[in-house]
């Protein structure tokens, strides 16, 4: 068993969780659906769907219009609305800490930014002219918009940031937040990711890459990581946000602590703009770095919330990467892909799955991978299926993997904290 090499003023812990996802409008409903293996994937009913080969996606379970007042909705892209809802839950869950605004940071990532705002504004421009383009168009479409919205809400003045690294953006936000705290720039950082890209254009683009499942007649069974019958990912939307602070800061204010962000690892493939390195070299370096920076060894890892999006190539590249990073210790690790129920939330994925990883070690239950009926012969992993897997007593270390188009790899190691 490892012990942290860091002092309480250097150890960064998670004290608040917030989410709005295809499974629920908050963390509790999202987590219980993950444990139950309930899918959030649906047949789309928008009028543009008929022109697309892919007619399924995973929209949020609770639309922001049910939560936020209309004037606020009008001034924010949907991705900003998700981020605000998740950040409010996380901040409240953290006990609305009293923090000097100049010591408070925000890092909210997005993979694509305000794409539905951009496309709607272009329709307005073409159909009704320049004068009808809303003055809020630019603040709504900019990818840092959601981070700025959350920064305004919390009056965060230590820095507001938006990492953009496709599907690893949400995880990179958490890694960046840890760096902000450890480097002394902030005492408390609200971090996560958001995405709202369920629209004809992104769907058509991903479909053109052959990246999406076309199992239109069986939406709930379409996202099936590691299964022989997987045929691509399902596009999801939503946001996940966590509140991070030093263990010293959390203890001083008597906050509850979910877990420690024990280590982070970031690497790049420099292999291909959209294909993963087939042997997973870059991804394995990110995982190894996360374990090493946690002061741990591969044998300490008990659980991985995998990136596993349900694409034929990507899932297998990650299997290679896990084996390369953990070696024989891989056999002692249970692996889950919660994308089997949420779909792929792109820039929010790493944040929502960080929450799933944190709760897995906190509640000692790894969620099942839904729709795994016929395990791919090349997946040499202990994949959790059917029921949640009980995790053992004692200190637990878990990894959350996120990889993005562009060859971005991020792994974050979470560890249980003695209360």
């Amino acid at each position, binding site marked *: 068993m490892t012990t942290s090499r860091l002092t309480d003023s250097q150890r960064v812990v998670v004290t608040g969780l917030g989410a709005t996802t295809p499974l629920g409008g908050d963390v509790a409903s999202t987590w219980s659906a993950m444990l139950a293996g309930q899918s959030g994937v649906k047949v789309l009913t928008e009028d543009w769907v008929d022109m697309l080969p892919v007619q399924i996606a995973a929209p949020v379970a609770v639309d922001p219009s049910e939560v936020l*007042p*209309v*004037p606020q909705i009008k*001034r924010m892209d949907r991705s900003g609305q998700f981020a605000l809802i998740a950040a409010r839950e996380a901040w409240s869950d953290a006990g609305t800490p009293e923090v000097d605004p100049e010591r408070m940071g925000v890092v909210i990532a997005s993979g694509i930014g305000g794409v539905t705002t951009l496309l709607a504004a272009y329709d307005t421009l073409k159909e009704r002219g320049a*004068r009808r383009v*809303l*003055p*809020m168009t630019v603040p709504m479409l900019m990818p840092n918009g959601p981070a700025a919205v959350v920064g305004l809400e919390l009056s965060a003045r230590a820095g507001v940031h938006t990492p953009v690294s496709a599907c690893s953006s949400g995880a990179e936000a958490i890694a960046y937040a840890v760096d902000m705290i450890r480097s002394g720039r902030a005492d408390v950082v609200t971090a996560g990711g958001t995405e709202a890209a369920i629209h004809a254009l992104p769907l058509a683009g991903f479909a053109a890459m052959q990246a999406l499942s076309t199992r239109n007649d069986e939406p709930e069974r379409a996202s099936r990581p590691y299964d022989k019958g997987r045929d691509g990912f399902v596009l999801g939307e939503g946001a996940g946000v966590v509140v991070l602070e030093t263990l010293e800061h959390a203890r001083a204010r008597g906050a509850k602590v979910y877990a420690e962000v024990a280590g982070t690892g970031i690497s790049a493939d420099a292999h291909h703009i959209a294909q993963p390195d087939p042997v997973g070299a870059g991804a394995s370096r990110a995982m190894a770095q996360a374990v090493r920076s946690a002061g741990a060894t591969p044998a300490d890892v008990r659980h991985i919330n995998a990136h596993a999006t349900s694409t034929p190539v990507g899932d297998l590249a990650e299997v290679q990467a896990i084996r390369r990073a953990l070696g024989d210790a891989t056999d002692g690790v249970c692996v889950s892909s919660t994308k089997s129920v949420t779909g792929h939330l792109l820039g929010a994925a790493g944040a929502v799955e960080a929450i799933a990883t944190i709760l897995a070690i906190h509640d000692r239950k790894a969620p099942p991978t839904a729709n795994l009926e016929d395990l791919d012969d090349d997946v040499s992993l202990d994949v959790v299926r059917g029921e949640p897997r009980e995790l053992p007593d004692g200190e637990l270390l878990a990894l959350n993997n996120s990889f993005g188009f562009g060859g971005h790899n991020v792994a974050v190691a979470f560890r249980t904290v003695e209360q």
Partner: protein
Amino acid sequence: MAASEQEILEGLAEIVNEETGIPAGDVQPDKSFTDDLDIDSLSMMTIVVNAEEKFGVRIPDDDVKGLSTVGDAVSYIQKASA
């Protein structure tokens, strides 16, 4: 027939309410858009464009600067649509 001053006030109050959430009853002729109603320039431009559409008038950007109170806007729209 052009709208009456009261009709314009009510229509404008509705637009302001939709854009900002300010209760329509608070949108009175003596109120300043910036000092009393706390409406920023971005919301003001959206209100202007929506008012143009609703009342069938054109309010050039240079003229918007002269509309400091709700009453100024009501009179402007009434004149422009007369």
